[in-house]
């Protein structure tokens, strides 16, 4: 098992390195030098050259790349060409906000999907099971930004229960923080919860029919005991795959939802960066998003080997 962990981690790091080259290369192949982009088309050649010299943009690309990438592990994303501010601290602050959002969204999705999916599976021969399956079908069809707008108009504008947007840090006011988190988390989680509940349903149905569940019952376990002691871990294997995919989807969804709810997360930072032509900032945010998605995949791989002994190398 240690061997698998090692190879998976090595693969993760190698992919991350390749991704960093790609992100860097993509930003440099964009037409015009970064200085030109920042200063605008009307800027004089001298001004552009001066800025390129100031920021070291006249150096060979490999050197620039190394300069950028070697700072990343310590959180040094460079200095913005536009604002002159350090990019690292901004990314860290914004990442925390997005992390809260994605985490809460995932929690909403799980809280919806695990009971709903299990119930739909257990009652799949009854009308209630069909109704439950139908509800999730509706949920899937609603995109998260639409869910966000509907939630705002109902729970914020009409009922006034939750703020329509904005962000309070948990440290400054925990209650306001939670209140502000509810609607965006629902907007993100409801849709993913619907998708997930269908996977949970089919997974639980499949596991229920497994021979080893019948064996467990033949040993004297009640149906639910067989499901808890033998079914859960087996069901977790396919569900973890979907959860990994969903976390990546949630991360992208967060970019949109942050927009709808005016939340200062990574998504807003990315959009600000694009609007301000702050290439180094955009490069940094994209790199963090790529890192997050690769990290999720790595985690899924690791969880597999923990959950499923068949994937472990036999000595």
């Amino acid at each position: 098992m240690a061997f698998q962990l090692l190879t998976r981690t090595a693969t993760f790091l190698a992919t991350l390195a390749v991704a960093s080259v790609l992100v860097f290369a993509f930003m440099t192949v964009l037409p015009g030098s970064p200085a030109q982009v920042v200063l605008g088309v009307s800027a004089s050649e001298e001004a552009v050259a001066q800025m390129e010299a100031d920021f070291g943009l006249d150096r060979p690309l490999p050197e620039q790349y190394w300069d950028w990438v070697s700072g990343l592990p310590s959180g040094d994303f460079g200095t913005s060409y536009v604002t002159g501010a350090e990019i690292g601290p901004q990314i860290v602050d914004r990442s925390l906000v997005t992390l809260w959002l994605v985490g809460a969204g995932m929690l909403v999705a799980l809280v919806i999907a695990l009971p709903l999916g299990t119930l739909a599976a257990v009652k799949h021969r009854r009308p209630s099971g069909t109704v439950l399956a139908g509800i999730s079908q509706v949920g899937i069809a609603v995109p998260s930004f639409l869910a966000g707008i509907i939630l705002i108009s109902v729970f914020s504008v009409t009922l006034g229960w939750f703020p329509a947007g904005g962000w309070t840090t948990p440290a400054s006011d925990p209650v306001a923080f939670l209140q502000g988190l509810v609607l965006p988390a629902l907007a993100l989680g409801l849709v993913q919860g619907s998708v997930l509940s269908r996977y949970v349903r089919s997974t639980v149905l499949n596991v229920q029919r497994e021979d080893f569940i019948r064996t467990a019952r033949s040993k004297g376990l009640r149906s639910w005991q067989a499901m808890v002691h033998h079914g859960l871990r087996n069901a977790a294997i396919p569900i973890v795959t979907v959860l990994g995919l969903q976390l990546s989807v949630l991360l992208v969804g967060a970019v949109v939802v942050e927009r709808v709810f005016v939340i200062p997360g990574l998504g807003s930072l990315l959009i600000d960066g694009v609007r301000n032509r702050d290439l180094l900032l955009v490069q940094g945010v994209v790199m963090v998003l790529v890192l997050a998605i690769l990290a999720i995949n790595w985690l899924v791989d690791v969880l597999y080997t923990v959950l499923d002994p068949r994937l472990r190398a036999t000595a």
Partner: protein
Amino acid sequence: MSDPVTARTPADVTVGGAAVDGAPGDDHRLVVEDLSVRAGRLGLVHDVSFRLGRGERVGLIGESGSGKSLTALAVMGLLPEGLSASGSVRVSSVDHDLVGASDARLADLRGRVLSMVFQEPMTALNPVMRVGDQVAEVMEVHDLASGRDARRRAVELLAQVRMRDPDGVARRYPHQLSGGQRQRVMLAIALANEPDVLVCDEPTTALDVTVQAQMLDLVVRGAAERDAALLFITHDLAVVATVCERVLVMYGGHIVEAGPTRRVFTAPRHPYTRGLVRASDLGALGVDGTDGSLRRPLPTIPGTVPPAGAFPSGCVFRNRCERADEACEVEPPWDGLPGDGAACVHPYDPEDTAAPGDTAASEPGGVT
């Protein structure tokens, strides 16, 4: 009708110390009466009745699709969703009927009073749980051992089913074991709590021929050491001939013939049984009285087993039977004693053996 077979060889009636279907109050471990299984309106198993005595080994044979597995699952209370059982299943140590009992009550009996080994060893064990834990669990769930004690007993049981390095095997996962080893793990689980009744549903069918004999031997020994009644399902008549004292023949969800193994295999009365015996290579064992060295092509039963619901009315074997006539259009009554007879209007004469030759066949019942 008189019963010359039992009259002639009374020894056959009381094999294994249990009377063949004697009066109630005898030492019966399992009494099944009018057991039926249906899927909605579709009947799959019809009014099956049989009894297993203490330490008795009874075979349940029939082609695939005859209802053998469903009968076993109905006895265990483990029918798949959508199927329901009616009739009566009783075990000697329990004062209530198992059919219709709550899942909690049945769960208390399963793995303790009644155990089962399934046909498919590759999928029957939990792939993500260590083998030793899966054996220990059957003792823990019934509070018969726990923790280290259960773990230690699990290793002992694995040793009893001749697992080499039982300590190591206990720590392994099912995918690290061969099919034969997994089936022995299943047997260890089934025997752990000294059950009254052991049901084995084709336990060797999925196994390599080289390990089948060992598995059979372990099943027979395991049951004998615990004085458990054994219901052994197979479609291999040679296996029944070596393992079982009595045999039940099933077709179309009905028991069409029952009796002591030697009588059934040497002088089958039901045309279906006769077809099975002729299609088997029992000759190789000398059970049907022929010299095993003379191998001839085996005549198969004409036609195939219809899917459930497509059996003819009256006698279910009517469309494949060489003796069928109008009299067979009503369900044939049982002919003979409850535990030794056949459900047929035109049964073969007991003197008319399945194959010509010496009817004094080798004694069935021993593996070794």
